């Protein structure tokens, strides 16, 4: 079967304008590599692993392409294309994992690395205290792509350069703006997975990340303020650049950066907060996404990312937030950065509740974690960021449900006598069990007597996860719901990067501890 990329796209329903395809040299290479008979190579690896004594084995033969353009002011700083192709074999022998990976995708290399993976697993198995096992996964043979419209790799480079330079021009047109940096990053994952369970899965995934930052400098005073873009990355194609008014946002960012130079500092103390989705996604990520990872609760991340204040015995018993709070995990969400057809265990993408009516009800699981706690199924949270990385538990899209009302920002502001409205993500930090956190933002507005007031600067808030979500007393409806996310969420040893989205409506929180970060020695409340 012809496995070329273009054929794959046709088979999976993506409309491609052949005339729009530039004759990129590496594109030809990608097509050649895709033509490698991956099914045959996979069968070789799986048979070799079985013969050597592996109870379970899988192989991923993946290609990762990236394109990035970065600019500052009126000039292009860099344009680069990168691709990485290789395979990783994972085996489970006598209750211990082994893994080996190489860029050399040949029969000889696959045989050698499969033997290496088995040797590692067996070497560890000799000392293993508690055997690792897997819950079952259905046998699958399928192809899947995420729901992008326009493949950004098919768009001319000049479109991307002009997009950024116009964006910069828009920001620089604001009097008082000194600097603007902007960039575009596109990622394409072409993944092939086969396992000893009989599954064989091909996936084609596109993600896009436009971003910019505007800086205004007061040279005389030795002061400067920046305002970064609010848009964030999405699991979308080039249409994301065309469906959002980036030029208007750049101009607004310029105005707000200049305005921040003269903005007031906050009075520290307890204040009501109204948080826009462009800000709240990151608080959700840190204080809900990570604590509900089961590997953290079991101590598997204790040496790096940390553990969790949640433990298995608290499932269905711990009040995570107010009754309004419903968090769901979803690897099927449209435009989600962590949306997949199947995870790197071969388990289908799913949607489930983590917090229901304020109660903590469930975990993010993988095949090996689920077995540790007596579950019968995995929710499909296994992911590796490269062919050369070991698959391990990574976060699905975790989102906050909107209210079943048509409330919007104005309705939430109306009931605030003295508060702060925050847009955009800024500084972020949280402890290793996900209790104590502190977040900044991009733009802060005073709320006085139910209305948006003057701009503030140097604002951060600090809280404790269950207290914070317990203080939520109002949510916007679907009309205010928006997805934010990260292109590079770090976790694991060696460190891996995961892209993940978090959707939410505008939300209101009562009496949260606000800091003035410009005070001497900073941030005393």
């Amino acid at each position, binding site marked *: 079967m012809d496995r070329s990329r273009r054929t794959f796209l046709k088979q999976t329903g993506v409309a491609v304008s052949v005339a729009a395809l530039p*004759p*990129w*040299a*590496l594109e*030809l*290479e990608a097509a050649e*590599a895709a033509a490698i008979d991956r099914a045959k190579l996979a069968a070789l690896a799986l048979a070799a692993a079985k013969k050597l004594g592996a109870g379970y084995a899988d192989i991923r033969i993946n290609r990762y392409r990236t394109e990035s353009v970065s600019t500052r002011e009126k*000039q*292009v700083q*860099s*344009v680069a*294309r*990168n691709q*990485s*192709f290789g395979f*990783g074999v*994972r085996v489970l022998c006598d209750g*211990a*994992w*082994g*893994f*080996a*990976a*190489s860029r050399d995708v040949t029969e000889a290399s696959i045989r050698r690395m499969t033997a290496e993976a088995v*040797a590692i697993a067996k*070497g560890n198995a000799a*000392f293993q*205290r508690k055997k*690792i096992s897997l819950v079952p996964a259905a046998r699958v043979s399928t192809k899947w792509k995420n729901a992008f419209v326009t493949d950004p790799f098919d768009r001319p*480079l000049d479109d991307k350069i002009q997009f950024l330079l116009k964006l910069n021009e828009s920001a620089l047109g604001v009097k008082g703006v*000194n600097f603007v940096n902007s960039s575009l990053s596109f990622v394409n994952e072409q993944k092939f997975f086969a396992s000893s369970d009989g599954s064989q899965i091909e996936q084609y995934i596109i993600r896009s990340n436009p971003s910019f930052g505007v800086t205004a*400098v*007061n040279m005389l005073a*030795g002061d*400067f303020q*920046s305002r970064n873009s609010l848009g964030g990355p999405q699991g979308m194609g080039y249409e994301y650049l065309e469906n959002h008014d980036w030029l208007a946002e750049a101009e607004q960012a310029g105005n707000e950066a200049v305005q921040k130079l003269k903005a007031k500092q906050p009075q520290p103390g307890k204040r009501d907060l109204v948080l826009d989705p462009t800000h709240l996604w990151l608080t959700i990520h840190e204080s809900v996404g990570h604590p509900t990872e089961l590997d953290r609760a*079991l*101590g*598997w*991340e*204790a*040496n*790096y990312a*940390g553990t969790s204040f949640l433990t298995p015995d608290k499932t269905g018993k711990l009040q995570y937030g107010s009754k309004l709070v419903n968090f769901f995990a979803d690897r099927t969400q449209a435009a989600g950065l962590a949306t997949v057809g199947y995870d790197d265990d071969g388990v289908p993408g799913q949607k489930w509740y983590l917090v229901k009516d304020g109660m903590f009800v469930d975990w993010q699981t993988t095949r090996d974690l689920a077995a540790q706690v007596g579950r019968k199924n995995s929710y499909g949270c296994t992911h590796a960021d490269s062919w050369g990385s070991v698959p391990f538990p990574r976060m699905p899209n975790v989102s906050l449900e909107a209210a079943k009302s048509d409330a919007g920002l104005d309705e939430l502001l109306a009931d605030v006598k003295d508060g702060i409205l925050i847009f955009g993500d800024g*500084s972020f*930090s949280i*402890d*290793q*069990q*996900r209790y*104590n956190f*502190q977040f900044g933002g991009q733009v802060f507005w005073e709320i006085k007597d139910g209305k948006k007031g003057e701009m503030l600067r140097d604002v951060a808030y*600090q809280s404790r996860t269950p207290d914070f979500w317990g203080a939520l007393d109002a949510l916007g409806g679907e009309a205010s719901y928006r997805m934010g996310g990260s292109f590079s969420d770090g976790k694991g*040893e*060696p460190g891996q990067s995961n892209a993940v989205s978090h959707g939410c409506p505008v939300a209101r929180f009562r009496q949260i501890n606000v800091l003035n*970060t*410009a005070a001497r*020695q*900073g941030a005393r*409340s």
Partner: protein
Amino acid sequence: MISETDARAVCHKLLSHVKAEDASVGVSSEDYAHQRFAANNFTTCGLRENLSVSVTVWSGKKRGAAATNAVDDAALRRAVEEAEQIAAVSPVDREYLPTLAAQTYKPSAGYAETTVKFPAASRSRLVHDVIGMCEKESVTGAGFFQARGTAGAFATKNGNFGYERSSLTSLSLTARTPDGTGSGYFLRNHYDIGRLDTARVARESIRKAQTSREPHTLDAGAYTVVLEAQAVADLLGFLRFVFDARSADEGRSPFSAPGGKTKVGEKIFDERISIYSDPWHAELPGSAFAQGGLPAQKMYLVRSGVLENLVYSRFWAQQKGKEPTPGPVNGILESSAPTASVEEMIRDTKKGLLVGRFWYIRPVDIRTLLITGLSRDGVWSIEDGKIQYPVRNFRFNQSLLQLLAPGNVDLISSPERVGSSEAQGGDSNLLPALKVKQFNFTSQSEAV
């Protein structure tokens, strides 16, 4: 990993395909192995081999770049073509400078074959022994061992070439007590596995876990603190990003001064403190190649508390009539005055806190180098020159400029090789323990 002969051949082949006026090409290879364990059990373990090439060309001063890990002859040609196609549709690179002609590099010594060839069976045994120490002391261990070798080369169309190998190995361990109230962490790295004291890592982590059990709760506030070298490494990781001359000249750096000036020449830190880079330091060898392919040299950023140098790229140096900066390629902070050990710092403290590690450190305000984060894996109260009891963790908001400012630094130890915990030991510095008079803890954290 790729040999110098093969690397030179790959670079030569890449350059032979270049039609553009100028080009810089590179090849890098990696052999990497790791063992991860948690809950006193092996979790994910494996190895990876990779080789990749990169090409940057300038055609009519227009720049294009491409990279791939396919390295057969046809793939090398395609990578060059890709870069040239990108250059053809790109605007003129206003910051273009011709690539360097042949340079003379003095080799550094940060490579040990024994690190790269450390056998899988030995890796398993090493982790088994660490887990065994945890079991013997009734603590739960989670940790990470890694061994990495890299070899790579670069070449320019103007005749420069450089080849270098390096290695790095590290072991970190978090030990937690069964009651969930105590946790200890220790991390060390080295380029030479023969000089990585794995038993010390296990011993120190377990000791910290056992002595941090049942911590007391203290109010947040400004405390005198003794910061172990690990804590200093965790804090000062942000310093490396702020010595950029261009940002300072543009008025958006902590080292910018009113009126469009910089703080070069000003005393910014305690006068005992010097921060420098030395590619040939025996304990911390750095790369022989500094930014832009310049031959690395020993150079000071801060000498005796005075900001002596900012880092000028080749482009910015030309704009400002300066010399481009031949570094930094590593980070060393040391005291010009007699040093004190951590034990002596504790004995010298009437009332204060001992901190072993910080975590999740992020910038809050770049103007003052205000950062926030939390203590982790052990804080202890010091009273009357002795450690009295463990203390719950805190969040801090602390300006690094104020941390090291004249008047705030009390005692400085001799530096030791340590990597930041957020970088998993993948970075290396020579840093001392510090006793500082005021450190700003702003809230309590109940996390263990």
